[in-house]
C-alpha cells in the first residue's frame, strides 16, 4: 500500500483554524501514515503546553499516526511543500491551516490514485462564495477567465490541468518552484501543472470536500507586498509561455554539455538555456534565472543525488528530459 504523508504548513493560526484542521486530520476515515506540521510562525510557541494540543498529540499517538512538529525556514510555504515532497513518501496530502477537510476527504482522494495519476483534488468551499462551476474546464489556458473548479461542488470525476489549495499529490516526481517569493503566489498551480506536463493525470473528484475558512489574519501567505505578487505572477506567466516547449537548463559543466549534446536531438521542441554556447547554443543562465526564478528542477546533479543515481550521466539526462 502506498504511504501518505499529511503536510500542514501553518503561520499565525495557532488558536484559530489550525486546531480545527488538526482535529479533522485525526478523524479521517483513512488515516495518513505520518503527519508533519511545518511551523512557519515568526514567533514560535510550544504547543505542547496548550491543553487542546496536548489532546491532539495524545489522539495521534493512540491512533498510531507518527507526527512531527517541525520549525520551518520562514522562506514561504513552497519551501515547506518541497520538504514534504522529498520526504520519501509515495503521496503527500497537503492541507492548508485554514482548510478543514470532511472526515472522508483523504479516503475519497486516495481511492482515485493509480500509476497514471499525479494529483487528486476535491471541492474547496469558501462560503458564502459558491460560484457555478458546472461549465468550468480546469485548463491552464482558462485560468484567468473562469473560476477554479474546486470552488464548487464536484459531482463527478474530471481531468483538469491544475489544482489549488489542498490536494493529494504524487511525491518526488516534480519540484516546487523555489524561486517564488515568500508569498508563493501561484505555487500550487505551477506545481500541479508541472505534474500535468510530465504526463500525469490531474483529477478533481466528488465527495472529498474541504471547507476553506479563509481568515484575513495570519496564514502562510501573510504578505502585502504587491511587488512580490507581481514577481511571482511574472514567473508564472513565463512558465506558461513555455508550455509548448521542453525547457532545457544546463547550469552545469562543459563535459556535461558535451554529453547532453547527444540527447538534445531527441527532445521535442526544446528551448535551451546553456552555460557553454560554443557546445550547445541557447539563452544564458542569467536569463533562465530571471525567467523562472529558480533552476533546481533542472539541476542534474541535485536530481542524481535525489535519485541516488548509479547509472550514467547520459541516462540521468534522459530521465530528466525524455
Amino acid at each position, binding site marked *: 500500500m502506498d504511504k501518505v504523508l499529511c503536510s500542514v504548513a501553518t503561520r499565525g493560526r495557532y488558536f484559530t483554524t489550525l486546531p480545527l484542521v488538526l482535529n479533522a486530520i485525526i478523524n479521517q476515515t483513512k488515516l495518513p501514515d505520518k503527519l508533519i506540521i511545518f511551523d512557519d510562525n515568526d514567533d514560535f510557541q510550544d504547543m505542547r503546553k496548550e491543553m487542546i494540543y496536548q489532546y491532539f498529540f495524545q489522539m495521534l499517538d493512540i491512533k498510531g499516526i507518527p507526527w512531527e512538529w517541525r520549525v520551518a525556514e520562514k522562506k514561504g510555504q513552497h519551501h515547506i511543500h518541497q520538504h514534504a515532497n522529498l520526504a520519501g513518501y509515495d503521496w503527500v496530502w497537503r492541507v492548508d491551516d485554514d482548510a478543514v477537510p470532511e472526515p472522508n476527504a483523504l479516503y475519497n482522494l486516495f481511492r482515485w490514485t493509480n500509476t497514471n495519476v499525479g494529483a487528486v483534488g476535491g471541492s474547496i468551499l469558501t462560503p458564502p462564495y459558491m460560484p457555478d462551476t458546472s461549465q468550468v474546464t480546469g485548463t491552464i489556458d482558462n485560468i484567468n477567465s473562469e473560476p477554479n473548479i474546486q470552488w464548487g461542488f464536484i459531482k463527478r470525476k474530471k481531468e483538469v490541468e491544475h489544482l489549488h489549495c489542498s490536494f493529494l499529490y504524487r511525491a518526488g516526481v516534480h519540484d516546487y518552484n523555489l524561486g517564488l517569493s515568500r508569498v508563493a503566489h501561484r505555487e500550487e498551480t505551477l506545481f500541479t501543472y508541472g505534474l500535468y506536463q510530465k504526463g500525469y493525470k490531474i483529477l478533481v473528484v466528488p465527495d472529498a470536500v474541504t471547507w476553506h475558512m479563509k481568515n484575513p489574519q495570519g496564514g502562510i501567505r501573510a504578505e502585502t507586498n504587491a511587488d512580490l505578487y507581481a514577481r511571482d505572477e511574472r514567473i508564472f506567466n513565463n512558465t506558461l509561455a513555455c508550455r509548448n516547449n521542453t525547457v532545457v537548463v544546463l547550469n552545469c559543466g562543459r563535459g556535461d554539455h558535451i554529453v547532453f549534446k547527444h540527447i538534445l536531438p531527441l527532445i521535442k521542441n526544446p528551448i535551451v538555456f546553456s552555460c557553454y554556447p560554443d557546445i550547445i547554443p541557447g539563452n544564458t543562465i542569467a536569463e533562465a534565472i530571471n525567467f523562472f526564478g529558480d533552476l533546481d528542477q533542472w539541476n542534474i546533479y541535485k536530481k542524481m543525488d535525489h535519485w541516488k543515481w548509479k547509472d550514467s*550521466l547520459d541516462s*540521468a539526462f534522459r530521465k530528466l528530459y525524455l
Partner: protein
Amino acid sequence: MIIIAPYAQQLRTNKENPKNYPYWKELIAMIDEPIIQVGIEGEKQLVDDFRKNRSMEELSSLIQTCRTWISVDSFFQHLAWDQNKKGVVLWGPSDPIIFGHPENINLLKDRSHLVKNQFLWWEATEHQNERFVKPHIVLEYLKE
C-alpha cells in the same frame, strides 16, 4: 602522438582537485612517443608542447590527429568521446560508471576509493594519491 589532459577544473578554494592524477611525471617519463599537453593558463607544464586555452574546434581537430590520449575525469574525456577517439581515463574519487564512457579505457584502482556522494562539489573531497593506479599500469593499456 599522444595528447594528455592532466588536470581537472581548478577548484574555487584553490585546493588541488581530488580528480587530478598524482603520477604524471613518472608516467610521462615512461612514454616513448611525442606528447602534447592540453589545458589552460596557470596549469603546470609537464611536457615541452603545451597548448593552452584552445577552442573546442581546435581541440577537436587536435584529437583527430593523435594516436590516443590520456586524461583525468575532466571535460576532455567527454570531448574525445564525442570525437569518437578512444583513450585512457585515469579515475580516482569519481565514478566511471556515472561520468565515464564505456568506449574508453577507464582505469580505476578500486571502487572502494570512490567518494560516497558523487554529486557534491569536489571542494569537499581531499586529494589522495592512493586512489589512483600506478604509471606502469597505465603504460600497459596505452599500448592497446
